[in-house]
């Protein structure tokens, strides 16, 4: 494909766009004037295409363009508007034309013929378009004496000769600007548009019969038309007319020898050749006609470079008069926007690089000349401003108006609306807002999807709209607004809106979220669910949408663009989809941080917030398992030290992690200088990256890191900084992997409890009645639900609410204890405790906060349901004993229901109580735990009449107690100061103590099973699991008895 061809393609695309826009606007045009000018635009576009294609020898394009033009021509005066049918046909033809243009080499003659016929048939009786293709020289020769002007005059007498031009039918191999005049064929072509009826023409030329050469059988045949004309005394026009009456001529072209037309008409014969297919079966399907006409001198000397396009002058149109024949089209308001110069993107990139270089030179010059005064300073300043402006301008070259993107939607909407039987109006706002080329390209698909969705799901049928009092015509507003380095694109419709209830139901049915989660979600959060794969609330699947594929693709596309989509909707009023995309991808806003002496960039999109650690400040890093953590509001944030990442080239091993923890002991940790934790989110994982300094924000141009360095995963690229040095761009994903941060940690990081010797607990503080403050350790809290009191159902005096499909008992504290009642409010809180198998929740009026504290309980055994009290936030707080409360509830339930079928748990409890007295002597349990709080809880769990519990504070204490007293069972914590549980058990076994040992752990069991057994434990259980712990202890007490019996 040569340059001329690609130029043709570019220009044709513009013409096609203009043509389409004109047609579409035509449907809405108000005044005759307006529609006239629109038709003019359309005509001009298709006309130019016809001219260009004819010039270049693309006959199929020319043929189709011509048919389109002649069809539209009738409406040029704007008096009438083309019917929908005609517009439809024209749009179809436009698409075919576009396909032809994009695929110049492919011959799609058949499709074009069909379309041409369709177009021509639409012209009806209004006019007849008779294609002309006349060998000027032959005509001259045959009509000796008559000037060529005579030919035109005769043709004019029948109607309008439209688009008369000298066209070349080049031998493609010989085509080229140099050889054009010598080697190319030249042809006069045109179409006779006549308003005369066939009869009138017949009368005019005096014939009644169809041309005699039409034979019934289809075959190729050459006819000397000149001869025929002489014989029948008929004009060629008549002949052509007769032919088109009976059928159509196609594949027509002239054959004549290459001669320089500027030197006058050649002497060799010029042959018009074509194939003819008759519409009626009687007529010969295929004929080849040879026209030889004659004329003498006086020929206008048409120059091939300027096809005679001013035929429209005869039609009263002078707009094209001064148009250059070159493909650069005249600027009309519509085409102005599309005027473009195609520049290779690589070239632009090179330009960008050069400018970067220039900036560096400027910076250096500034330094070099900063000492000097006068002339040179002036020069430097000018250099400075020019460079900056240059940089801005080059950046702008990549920017394109959103209008280019929006422009294609009216057509799509129109087609879609027609297909779905809806009436839709599209309004576009902010077409001039500019976006980077790549962003525009990548927005096309998601926007198309969203708009399709709006039309299909959003807008109602005209009837339905009328029924609810809306206008029949639905509206879709497409708008683009620049906001703070981003562009916000909104697609708004005034349709039925999204029903949050339907979304909820669907989401619940699909199991995407639990009911209670859905209950808490805002509408906007709910609507964002429709972006998940497989989600569609449309009741029916249509061709257009509703299969639930698409929206997730939209989301993926938008995520790739680093964009953000939010959906707002009001039922019955419409939906608005807001899309925020960055202006450009080439330039990324980054945070520049330093670690040691090195500078790194971090993409800002991954950054959620920055936490500053001051020397001597309260906020400190702590240790949890093998990682440092930071308490960020309510969650634990794993913290990775960037300096350690940089220092260790291997992904962290357990040893590495231990080393790091040892290096930064939490107790002594008080940073000498301010440190920063960057809270990053990547792949849904949130972590903190500890850096020395934050230098600021900078927009950087991302360059790939060197190909040989692809194994270095903690960086994603490199960039040039203002001072000319290279800085590396940190890669959050790579850093997480390198630190093996989440590999060893449980999924629910925020729930895990850091254990350190100081035994800090997090407790939930809440109020029920106005007088008391209650506290519950967070480890005993499964979750807190927001409770809508309207959803509470009552059975007798008991209250229930359905959570996650389970009917959950609501406990009011004043029913179990002597405490103040709470005031009713529409929404309350329900605290769901852990380790309680029966679904129940403690009602709270207000959640105060969570607080980390070392629990120092004042045991107050008097109040049922209360473990003890402590002063928290200068208020006396009641620490609840969940198990006691539960027992009383379960008891109450059994009593109240009167059913003698106790639940499994109650049975276990009964067994515990009833079994224990059966022991002959009082059983003695040694409970070793360093935490007073847990010690108290576990002690309460195990308390029974015939059981005596002695407590020890650590392993060493335990050993001493074992030495001085007899025990039937030892229950020991693992993590304790001085001597931990492992060591304690080992030491006890070594000393020959044979009683069962049960380990208490707050850790996941499996990992510790082997170790526990190796150390000599008989069993282990989770500390706070009341029921299981009781069962285990019971079991081992019995075993202990059995062991003693034989002795």
């Amino acid at each position, binding site marked *: 494909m040569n340059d001329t061809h690609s130029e043709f393609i570019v220009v044709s695309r513009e013409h096609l766009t203009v043509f389409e826009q004109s047609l579409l606007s035509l449907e809405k045009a108000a005044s005759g004037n307006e529609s006239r000018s629109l038709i003019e635009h359309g005509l001009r576009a298709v006309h130019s295409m016809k001219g260009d294609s004819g010039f270049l020898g693309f006959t199929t394009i020319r043929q189709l363009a011509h048919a389109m033009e002649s069809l539209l021509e009738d409406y040029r005066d704007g008096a009438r508007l083309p019917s929908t049918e005609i517009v439809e046909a024209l749009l179809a033809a436009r698409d075919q034309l576009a396909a032809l243009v994009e695929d110049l080499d492919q011959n799609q003659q058949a499709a074009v013929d069909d379309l041409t016929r369709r177009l021509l048939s639409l012209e009806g009786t209004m006019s007849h378009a008779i294609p002309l293709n006349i060998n000027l020289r032959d005509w001259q020769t045959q009509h000796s004496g008559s000037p060529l002007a005579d030919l035109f005059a005769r043709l004019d007498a029948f109607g309008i000769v439209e688009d008369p031009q000298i066209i070349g039918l080049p031998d493609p191999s010989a085509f080229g600007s140099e050889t054009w005049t010598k080697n190319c064929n030249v042809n006069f072509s045109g179409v006779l548009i006549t308003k005369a009826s066939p009869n009138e023409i017949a009368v005019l030329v005096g014939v009644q019969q169809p041309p005699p050469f039409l034979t019934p059988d289809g075959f190729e045949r050459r006819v000397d038309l000149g001869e025929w004309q002489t014989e029948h005394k008929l004009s060629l026009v008549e002949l052509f007319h007769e032919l088109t009456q009976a059928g159509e001529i196609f594949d027509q072209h002239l054959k004549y020898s290459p001669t320089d037309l500027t030197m006058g008409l050649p002497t060799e014969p010029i042959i018009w050749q074509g194939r003819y297919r008759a519409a009626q079966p009687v007529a010969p399907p295929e004929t080849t006609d040879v026209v030889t006409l004659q004329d003498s001198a006086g020929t206008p000397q048409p120059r091939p470079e300027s096809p005679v396009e001013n035929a429209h002058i005869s039609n009263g149109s002078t707009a094209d008069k001064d148009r250059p024949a070159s493909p650069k089209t005249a600027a009309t308001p519509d085409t102005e926007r599309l005027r473009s110069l195609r520049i290779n993107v690589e070239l632009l990139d090179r330009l960008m690089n050069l400018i970067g270089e220039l900036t560096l030179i400027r910076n250096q010059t500034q330094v070099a000349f900063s000492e000097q005064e006068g002339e040179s300073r002036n020069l430097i300043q000018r250099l400075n401003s020019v460079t900056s402006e240059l940089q801005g301008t080059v950046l702008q070259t990549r920017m394109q108006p959103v209008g280019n993107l929006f422009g294609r939607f009216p057509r799509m909407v129109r087609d879609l609306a027609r297909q779905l039987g809806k009436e839709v109006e599209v309004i576009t706002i902010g077409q001039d807002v500019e976006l980077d080329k790549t962003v525009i390209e990548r927005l096309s698909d998601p926007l198309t999807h969203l708009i399709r969705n709006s039309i299909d799901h959003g807008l109602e049928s005209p009837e339905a709209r009328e029924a609810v009092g809306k206008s029949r015509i639905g509206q879709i507003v497409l708008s683009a607004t620049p906001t703070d380095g981003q562009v916000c694109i909104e697609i708004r419709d005034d349709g039925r809106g999204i029903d949050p209830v339907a979304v909820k139901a669907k989401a619940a049915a699909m199991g995407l979220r639990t009911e209670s989660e859905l209950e808490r979600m805002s509408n906007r959060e709910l609507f964002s669910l429709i972006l998940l794969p497989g989600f569609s609330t449309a009741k029916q699947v249509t061709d257009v949408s509703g299969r639930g594929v698409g929206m997730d693709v939209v989301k993926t596309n938008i995520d790739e663009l680093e964009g953000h989509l939010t959906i707002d909707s009001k039922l019955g009023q419409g939906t608005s989809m807001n899309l925020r995309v960055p202006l450009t991808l080439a330039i990324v806003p980054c945070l520049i941080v330093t670690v040691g002496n090195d500078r790194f960039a971090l993409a800002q999109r991954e950054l959620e917030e920055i936490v500053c650690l001051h020397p001597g400040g309260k906020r400190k890093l702590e240790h949890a398992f093998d990682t440092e953590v930071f308490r960020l509001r309510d969650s634990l944030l794993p913290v990775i030290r960037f300096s350690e990442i940089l220092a260790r080239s291997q992904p962290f091993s357990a040893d590495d992690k231990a080393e790091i923890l040892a290096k930064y002991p939490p107790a002594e940790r008080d940073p000498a200088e301010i440190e920063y934790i960057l809270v990053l989110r990547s792949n849904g994982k949130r972590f903190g990256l500890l850096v020395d300094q934050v230098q600021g924000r900078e927009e950087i141009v991302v360059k790939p890191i060197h190909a040989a360095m692809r194994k*270095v995963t903690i960086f994603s690229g490199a960039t040039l900084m203002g001072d000319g040095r290279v800085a590396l761009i940190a890669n959050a994903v790579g850093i997480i992997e390198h630190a093996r941060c989440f590999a060893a940690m449980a999924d629910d990081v925020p729930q895990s409890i850091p254990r350190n010797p100081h035994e800090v607990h997090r407790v939930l503080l809440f109020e029920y009645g106005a007088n008391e403050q209650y506290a519950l350790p967070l480890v005993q809290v499964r979750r807190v639900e927001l409770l809508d009191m309207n959803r509470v159902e009552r059975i007798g005096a008991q209250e229930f609410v359905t959570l996650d499909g389970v009917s959950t008992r609501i406990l009011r504290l004043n029913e179990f204890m002597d405490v103040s009642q709470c005031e009713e409010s529409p929404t309350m809180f329900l605290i769901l405790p852990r380790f309680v198998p029966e679904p129940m929740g403690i009602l709270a009026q207000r959640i105060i906060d969570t607080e980390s504290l070392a629990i120092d309980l004042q045991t107050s055994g008097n109040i049922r349901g209360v473990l003890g009290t402590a002063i928290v936030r200068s208020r006396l707080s009641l620490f609840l004993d969940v198990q006691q409360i539960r027992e009383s509830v379960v008891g109450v339930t059994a009593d109240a229901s009167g059913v003698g079928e106790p639940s499994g748990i109650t049975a276990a409890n009964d067994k515990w109580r009833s079994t224990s007295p059966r022991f002959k002597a009082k059983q003695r349990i040694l409970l070793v735990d360093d935490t007073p709080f847990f010690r108290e809880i576990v002690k309460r769990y195990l308390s029974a009449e015939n059981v005596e519990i002695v407590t020890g504070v650590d392993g060493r204490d335990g050993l001493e107690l074992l030495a001085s007293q007899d025990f039937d069972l030892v229950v020991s914590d693992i993590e304790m100061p001085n001597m931990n549980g492992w060591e304690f058990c080992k030491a006890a076994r070594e000393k020959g103590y044979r009683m069962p040992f049960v380990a208490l752990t707050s850790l996941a069991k499996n990992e510790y099973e082997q170790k526990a057994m190796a150390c000599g434990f008989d069993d282990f259980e989770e500390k706070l699991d009341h029921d299981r712990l009781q069962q285990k202890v019971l079991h081992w007490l019995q075993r202990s008895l059995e062991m003693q019996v034989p002795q």
Partner: protein
Amino acid sequence: MSDNVTLYCTFLSAGRLFGVPVLDVKEVTAEKRFTGIPHAPQEVLGLVNIRGHIFLALNLATLLAVRNHPTPADAQFVIFKSSVGPAFGIVVDQVGDIVSVSDKQTEALTNGEQMQLHFSDRSSLVASVGKLDGQILIILDPHKFLACVEHSRGALDNV
């Protein structure tokens, strides 16, 4: 064997005279504001900005397994053409003359010689040895440098 003459760009590194075909060299600069790449193999000095383009700088001495050779302050950066490898160069102690060496003057290394040169594990980088007047020119094949560095990364992993 015909007597072809090849031009070599010579340079000194760790006290030895090396050469690479002059046609492989894009330019020589004194730019040395390298940005080190953590986790990169030890042969990599870092990235450097040469007029808006980022190049990877390799330390020739390290590449040739010379240990503990400090890079002098006036070291120079020899950048190779993109036909040799993507955007990279080597840092040498000092750039010397361009010398023409005929095929007759060069010899491929024998095993024994490789050992003598103490580059045993990196001998593949040496294309041949040229005998100049009173001097030995070790002719390197820059095409192999990057591959060598990529392997080195693997070697480091096992340390």
